[in-house]
């Protein structure tokens, strides 16, 4: 119903201003296509260069589509960035913590949006700060704390009293990624929480009230009533979380010492290529293109599947309240 209404109105208005609309439409397409070219160009260049044999660079008649394709750069890229291992490590560190973060943030966001409690103002302020201050700012103390993981100084106190150090070093383990995600302060958790909170604020409350009156507890209400009606926001948050974690190279560089995820390898590809520099400049361009394409391919495939739902969910999620 809602979808039909504006179309009708547009149609009737269109008749009145037909003369104005056509140049406007043409202008719109020109703008969209020209900016779209800027967006697509690097991607096209990347794919094209990854398939070009070296001889094609020297042939002035070839710009994008070479006469013969070669996949040798893909093989080379897979070897250079250690693709399969790095992919596994991306899933182990980044994807798992993305999933934890999406689930945990939904619960926290639900609580923040639905309930009034003492100290809520404090958490509102904290949310703003969490969005505002990136982890990059506090990475030094974060690393120091992780190297001696402690809760409220209890371990430190115990250490100074008895001399036994119970503070584990969790750098280089999955816990540096899982723990913050589980506690709702992972990678860009502030933004995800904000989206959730805005969504749950706009969700009608009556069903949940009915469930409470019928005696359902918090978890029952959350899992069987609030969650099933929020698939829209899940799509949005999932895509964001997935993509941000997939592309995150900063935290792994800081927290890990080997077994790096894919993003780090792409970030470092320049030095990886110089390490095994068997080929010339053009080959390294091609290898970079191939490596980048291999890197974005999984996300791209997921996006192609979720794309329609994502585009629609943007319309309905009400991020902005």
């Amino acid at each position, binding site marked *: 119903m809602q979808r039909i*209404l*504006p179309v009708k*109105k547009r149609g009737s*208005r269109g008749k009145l201003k037909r003369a104005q609309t056509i140049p406007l*439409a043409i202008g*719109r397409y020109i*703008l969209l296509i020209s900016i779209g070219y800027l*967006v*697509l*160009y690097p*991607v096209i260049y*990347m794919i094209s*260069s990854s398939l070009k044999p070296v001889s094609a660079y020297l042939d002035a008649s070839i710009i994008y589509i070479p006469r013969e394709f070669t996949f040798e750069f893909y093989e080379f890229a897979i070897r250079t960035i250690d693709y399969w291992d790095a992919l596994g490590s991306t899933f182990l560190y980044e994807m798992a913590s993305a999933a934890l973060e999406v689930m945990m943030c939904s619960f*926290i966001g639900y*609580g*923040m949006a*639905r*309930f009034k*409690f*003492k100290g*809520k103002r404090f*958490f509102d302020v904290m949310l703003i700060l*969490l*969005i*505002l201050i*990136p982890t*990059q*700012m*506090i*990475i*030094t103390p*974060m690393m120091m*704390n992780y190297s*001696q993981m402690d*809760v409220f100084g209890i371990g430190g106190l115990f250490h100074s009293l008895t001399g036994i150090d119970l503070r584990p070093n969790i750098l280089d383990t999955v816990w540096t990624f899982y723990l*913050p995600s589980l*506690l*709702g*302060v992972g990678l860009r958790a502030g933004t995800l929480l*904000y989206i959730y909170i805005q969504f749950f604020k706009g969700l009608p409350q009556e069903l949940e009230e009915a469930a*409470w009156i019928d005696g359902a507890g918090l978890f029952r209400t959350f899992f069987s009533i609030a969650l099933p009606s929020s698939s829209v926001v899940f799509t949005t948050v999932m895509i964001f979380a997935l*993509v941000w974690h997939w*592309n995150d*190279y*900063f935290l792994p560089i800081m927290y890990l010492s080997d077994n790096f995820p894919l993003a780090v390898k792409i*970030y470092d*590809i*320049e030095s990886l290529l110089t390490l095994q520099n068997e080929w010339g*400049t*053009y080959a390294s*361009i091609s290898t*970079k293109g191939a490596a*980048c394409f291999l*890197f974005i391919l999984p996300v791209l495939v997921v*996006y192609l599947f979720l*794309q329609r739902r994502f585009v629609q969910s*943007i319309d309905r*999620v009400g*991020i*902005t309240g």
Partner: protein
Amino acid sequence: MRTKKKNRGITALKARYGWICVAPWALGLVLFFIWPVIQSVVYSFCKVNLSAGGMNITFLGLDNFKYIFMENANYLDFMVESLVKFLYSFPVILVLSLILALILNQRFRGRLFFRALYFLPVIIASGAVLKTILSSTAAGVSNMQQDESIAMSMFSVSELVTSLGLPQQMSSYFVTLMDGITGLIWNCGVQTVLFIAGLQAIPPLLYEVSRVEGATSWEEFWFITFPMLSRVIVLVSVFTMVELITDPTNKIMDQAYAFMRSQFYGESSAMLWSYFLIVGVLMAALLGLFKKCCLNKWE
């Protein structure tokens, strides 16, 4: 007795539910956010030494800041450079993503296709790939003493410049401009998404009323769309600021991490926080200006 009775019932229950939901987050905030923030602010005023048993912190006062602003050779230059970059990127990203959102929010043929296309940067661009893609041509070919870049390969700029009869210096200027624009457009993805979501949240009723009253689209934009978007604009500004600060090409961050790696923790924290504060104040000023101008206009 009475107060206890009051505290029972649905309100108290809800308050308890609220705390149950927020409890893990509270723990996380203290452990992984508030405490580290306090620590790093303290470090910026101190000299931090790592030793076998832990670390020694000696209070220095403002020495670290004095060092980075007065004695360090690069910090001020980098600061000016990235502030200039911030000042021109910020408005361009905001305006461009707003325009894109306005267009993509209309109904026209191929809208889904264009939306999918313009959301592509959301998927691909965050740091690593963007850096590699955008620099792949430049870095690769510059080894061969040819200053080629993404814009250079897009159109032959030098030919364009000579055919227009412009001076040669213009060509390099155009190239930087085009390179900059490509990078900026690739930074617009999430902002466009947020703006579209904001546009969708505006009740259509307002537009219907304004049409009945005979408003032009221009007036509709300035008196309905823009005011209704003000909250999104703040959100997008904050997001853009964080993006620009954590940009992988940001030299200040690089320098700060280099200091950190050579164990100058105090100086590194001082660098990060003074940069953050200056950008923050700048943005607060911009937002304040925005608020003041727009409020004056709307009232």
